[in-house]
């Protein structure tokens, strides 16, 4: 009994003032993921990595848009999205106060425009993703002509690339080239 009283006195007040005063969390606390649409290229890497299906992408070909979304109600704050993002567009903050009065407020979206294929004019990939890849490839191109060719290639949709390949193989006359080499 004496030990107990001593312990109680030693402890003093154990409670904190939260929520009337802020409570401090660890520096690397994994809280609410914050999305920066300016950095995002809508590549969908995060939606593939998300174990809880909190992140999603929906492509609307008729409107020419791709909608990125996060559902904070499903999020498990694992931070896999942050790890796989190539452009630092999503980061976990230390914010843990996520309560909302309306469930719909737990969903956040960002709308991205789709780029149209330079050949057929149909939308096929997010504009920003195409630009990002084109820039990367151009930067490593040996010549100016090569850079232009790469830019064209990236801006072409997969269906057109396949069609172009057929034409190219036909005109290149593979058989004759092989004969010359021999």
């Amino acid at each position, binding site marked *: 009994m004496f030990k107990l009283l001593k312990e109680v006195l030693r402890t003093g007040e154990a409670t904190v003032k939260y929520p009337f005063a802020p409570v401090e969390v660890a520096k690397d606390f994994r809280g609410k993921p914050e999305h920066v649409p300016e950095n995002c290229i809508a590549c969908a890497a995060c939606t593939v990595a998300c*174990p809880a299906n909190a992140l999603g992408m929906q492509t609307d070909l008729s409107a020419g848009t791709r909608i990125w979304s996060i559902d904070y109600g499903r999020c498990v704050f694992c931070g896999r999205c942050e790890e796989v993002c190539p452009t630092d567009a999503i980061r976990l903050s230390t914010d843990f106060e996520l309560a909302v009065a309306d469930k719909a407020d737990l969903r956040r979206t960002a709308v991205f425009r789709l780029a149209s294929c330079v050949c057929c004019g149909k939308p096929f990939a997010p504009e920003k993703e195409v630009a990002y890849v084109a820039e990367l490839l151009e930067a490593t191109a040996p010549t100016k002509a090569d850079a232009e060719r790469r830019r064209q290639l990236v801006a072409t949709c997969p269906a057109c690339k396949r069609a172009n390949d057929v034409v190219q193989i036909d005109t290149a006359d593979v058989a004759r080239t092989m004969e010359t080499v021999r």
Partner: protein
Amino acid sequence: MHAPLTKPDTTRIGSATIAELRRKLPHAVLDESWQTPTQATITVKLDDLPNVVSTLYHEHDGWLSVMAGNDERSINGNFALYYALSMEGAEKSFIVVRAEVPAATEEFPSVTPLVPAAVWHEREVRDMFGLRPVGLPDERRLVLPDDWPEHLHPLRKDAMDYRLRPEPTGDDETYRFVNDAESETTVVPLGPLHITSDEPGHFRLFVDGEDIIDADYRMFYVHRGMEKVAETRMGYNEVTFLADRVCGICGYAHSVAYTTSIENALGVQVPERAQAIRAILLETERMHSHLLNLGLACHFVGFDTGFMQFFRVREKAMTLAELLTGSRKTYALNLIGGVRRDILGEQKAETLRIVSELREEVTRLVEMLLATPNLEGRVKGVGLLDPQIAREYSPVGPCVRGSGHKRDTRVDHPFAGYGRTTFPVHTGEGCDVLSRTLVRVGEFFDSLSIIEQILADAPGGPVLTEDFTYRPHKFALGFTEAPRGEDVHWSMTGDNQKLFRWRCRASTYANWPVLRWMLRGNTVSDAPLIVASIDPCYSCTDRVTVVDVKKAVSKTVPYKEMERYCRERTNSPLK
């Protein structure tokens, strides 16, 4: 005469046991494969299955860890059963006994009559795969609800989509609760729901006056279908985060068990530093879990000041988890091949500071608890788990150690970073609630010392390897010692970047079957205390039905009332 078919292999631990088994039961073993140097799978003839499991169990110090059913019709045309035994005799290893069940008969000879520990597993495989254990004494459903369609077995590959929820067809409970009492008893139902628990259960106590004559219970009211979801919707790495959520208290142990199972199956060499970090986090988890249970022990004996003190100090363990992982619970730090965060110098210093604070504070609290006069009176000699019953049913953790059995996965089968530490295995001879509580106290202080040992000599280097590829249909066991005992996962990889089968056996699953014997012979007011002493993933249930066998009346008592009675022991609700 039959000479041993294989020479004992010194690099493979367990090979002598298998050679011995082949000698005793010639022709029984059809095939032998090794997943790791301490893990073998032997395929046996279906008719010899009970004999093989029983021989390993009774003659070679085997304990049944898990049994997994598997629908292998798409691989070899049959169903398969995997009885995983933890061999704790001369050779400490895992031996998995595999038997194929023909799809045409869907029957297998039950192992339960020879090894009672298999009872829950065989009832489950009957529910989930529709394989009939011939000779199983207990033919009740285990997992599926009473009104579940008769021939729908969820884990068969062709059974159902994971999103399907058959409509409930009735509210009637048709489950028969078993009562072995010879004289008349009164029924006390406890349960089925408790708001704060993650796994509700329903208890029926059969009482004579105040004495519990027998007890029965059923769980799985909120079966989450995690195995099915993992097999059909998630990738290998995503399942680690699902495994984190198997338990709200010891989830990281499941996450490590799952990743280890895949790493064992594929032969992934996990970096030493990653293994060390896993061990540190597992011990962090054990600390907060044991402090929680010690707090609850205070609460149930009516010592609420102690409860508050333990929970106050537990907060430090939670802070430590937050510091090291970024989250107080569900650490989410594992990937197949390692961990996602290193422990940096600053964190190491802070960890050591918290560890020394915890040691000092908990020492004082434990002294205070043991000096409380009514503690011993309430917990000593209460909820006895007979060592013989324990041997038959393979319980795990402080529950089995409290009955004198020296089994701890960290020591028997060192995994993660435990190979680089030394610590004792605490056992108790009292077999009662007090023994189990004291085992937890001892283990708490071990955790502190393990963290210090590992931090002092953890090797440097990478914390994650991605140097492996997934190959289809590889399988192995993964295991950890969670705060409540051994967690065992059996995983098989698939050919579509998803698991073919994931069997996850939580520690409490192994402890429930012995609870019946622990409750017998005690008074109703001790029931919540005894249930809490196995530290189940929930420590209480909502209501209790008391059936007085002599008066043949049944009475439902609210759980709050039972708990009050347990603490105060006055004004019996049964009168």
